[in-house]
């Protein structure tokens, strides 16, 4: 079990910082996801942990050892990249055995371990096939098997599901999480897909412009994002201007709303509030006397399969609501909506 620590880690390419003084502590056996948009520095961070990229400044620690200057071959890390990097001229079996064979493991032992690993990834019957004869999902499992068979201390996954279709991606997510739980190795995954991040992670580090914007559990980041950028990146939400007061209320385009928690930003300072689409409840029978119950008119209704998305005109503003598509409402219908006070989250403009 290996603890990974990044201390003040930076990487500059041609004068532009790709990673800007990152501090990160990955607990032993943790599944941590580096989440961010393209070009935010998440892959560069992973490559530095791997040893494929040298940091401009800062250091990388595995347990109590500084590995910043340790070459990639000696770091005992495993990497599964987006394009898998399978050796096209080797069979599945030879690909998986490669890491063992370059370390000089006896042939018999190699065969035994390779066969066990192919069993785990359900690829035993494809042992003699070449990568060009496999599907994307099978290639990914070969890449994972090839990495796991070397028993790395830290597993690094660089958008390994980016080239798979939606259905296969969901299956592979489950497969990767199961493998992590079974082996318990410290895992860092890089992705720009927030669904993937929330599904897999023990904790998520949201990265923007080479810096960590927020490091927390998936639930915390989703419900209590630190700023507007994180909130928008982590899924659909209504974000609106408001002015909090010291008595636990905000003035918003929809009127005076009650908050579930005291206002974090300073009172009477204009800020923004966030409310997830699915947090708003539509209920035609709710009484106006309850907290945050408003009347709205459906301006647009979108069928999304399992969910319906409604755009409502409420007082001076617009709110978007999602609810199960079991009861489809019509455009123009006037409905009562309830905005749960504990779901209204004030965003910190300074964060």
């Amino acid at each position: 079990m290996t603890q990974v620590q990044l201390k003040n880690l930076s990487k500059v390419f041609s004068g532009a910082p790709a990673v800007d003084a990152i501090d990160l502590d990955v607990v032993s056996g943790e599944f941590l996801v580096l989440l961010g948009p393209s070009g935010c520095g998440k892959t560069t961070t992973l490559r530095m942990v791997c040893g494929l990229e040298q940091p401009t400044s800062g250091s990388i620690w595995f347990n109590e050892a500084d590995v910043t200057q340790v070459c990639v071959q000696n770091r005992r890390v495993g990497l599964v990249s987006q394009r898998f990097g399978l050796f096209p001229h080797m069979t599945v079996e030879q690909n998986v055995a490669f890491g063992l064979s370059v370390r000089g493991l006896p042939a018999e032992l190699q065969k035994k371990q390779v066969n066990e690993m192919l069993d785990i990834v359900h690829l035993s019957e494809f042992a003699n096939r070449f990568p060009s004869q496999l599907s994307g999902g099978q290639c990914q499992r070969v890449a994972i098997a090839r990495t796991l068979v070397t028993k790395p201390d830290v597993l690094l996954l660089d958008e390994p599901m980016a080239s798979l279709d939606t259905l296969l991606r969901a299956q592979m997510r489950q497969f990767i999480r199961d493998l992590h739980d079974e082996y318990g190795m410290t895992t860092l995954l890089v992705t720009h897909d927030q669904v993937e991040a929330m599904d897999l992670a023990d904790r998520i580090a949201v990265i923007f412009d080479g810096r960590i914007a927020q490091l927390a559990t998936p639930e915390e980041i989703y419900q209590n994002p630190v700023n507007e950028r994180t909130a928008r990146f982590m899924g659909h939400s209504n974000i609106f201007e408001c002015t909090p007061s010291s008595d636990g209320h905000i003035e918003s385009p929809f009127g005076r709303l009650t908050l579930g928690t005291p206002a974090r930003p300073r009172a009477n300072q204009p800020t923004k509030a966030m409310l997830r689409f699915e947090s708003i409840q539509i209920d035609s029978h709710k009484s106006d006397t309850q907290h945050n119950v408003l009347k709205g008119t459906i301006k647009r209704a979108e069928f999304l399969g399992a969910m319906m998305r409604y755009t409502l005109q409420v007082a001076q503003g617009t709110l978007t609501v999602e609810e199960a598509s079991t009861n489809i409402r019509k455009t123009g219908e006037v409905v009562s909506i309830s905005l749960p006070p504990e779901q209204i989250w004030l965003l910190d403009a300074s964060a």
Partner: protein
Amino acid sequence: MPKPYKAHTAITGPLARRQTLRDLAQVLPLFVVLFFLFGGAVVLAVLQSFGYAPWFGINEFPSTHYYERLWLSADFWLSLGYTLYYAIAATLIGLVISIPLSIALCARFKASRIFSALIRLPLMVPYSVGIALALVMLGNGGLLSRFSAFIGWIDDPAQFPLILRTHWGWGIIAVYVWKQVPFMTLALAAVLVRKGDDTHEAALVLGATSSQIFWRVTLPQIMPGIVSASLICFAFNIGAFEAPFILGGGYPDTLPVLAWRYFQDANYAFQLQGMAVVVSLALVSGLILSLYLLAYRRYERARGRV
């Protein structure tokens, strides 16, 4: 009931005919060169080598006389040996230099325009200039011998080891290598760029050393480039005339020089003998290249690529 939709995979009608005509017009120059210039010349060469040359007043067709005389001569086999030796040695040395050079070009000097220009330079210099440079540099009165005498390694430039005009063919091989290394390097660099860094990085992370990566990952992956580049260079070397003619060790000459000597003879019958040399050379070259390709196909099939 609506008619089922019939899928069309190709354009038909006048539009298709016009497209076909346009395609034919585009490939016509190739066919003209292939069938009339090259094909016609090959047929004439084969006919002449079998004794058919009525325009010289010779018509012994079909006669194997010229082949018999050629193949029964020990000098022909010596000439063939020299021809193959220069071609194969130059191709192999060229590869040994080009493979690490192309890897260095892709790994470290990708952005270096100076390095790229230096590599390309010999491609832009004509062959004859390369031969002249070899004479100036490697001859017994050349720069290298004079410099060796100057630093005291030898007493007199004439004592310098014979590089040119010897059947070891160092000068010929040097010129071939000098000219083909840039071509091979660029061809292999193109394959390396297309291959990308993924497998190299994967091997590194899996713990492979540089030497293991080269032999087990990089080399098998650039094999298609090695085969194409070596085929082209070998085919060129085996038929090259100028370098062996100027820098060679004299009689017995390489086969292209031997053929040239026959063609220069005032006796027309030797023209036919020259054609037998040319056809023999083409047969040997074709046989070697076919066997090489066959072996490569088997290698590729064993790796699931064909």
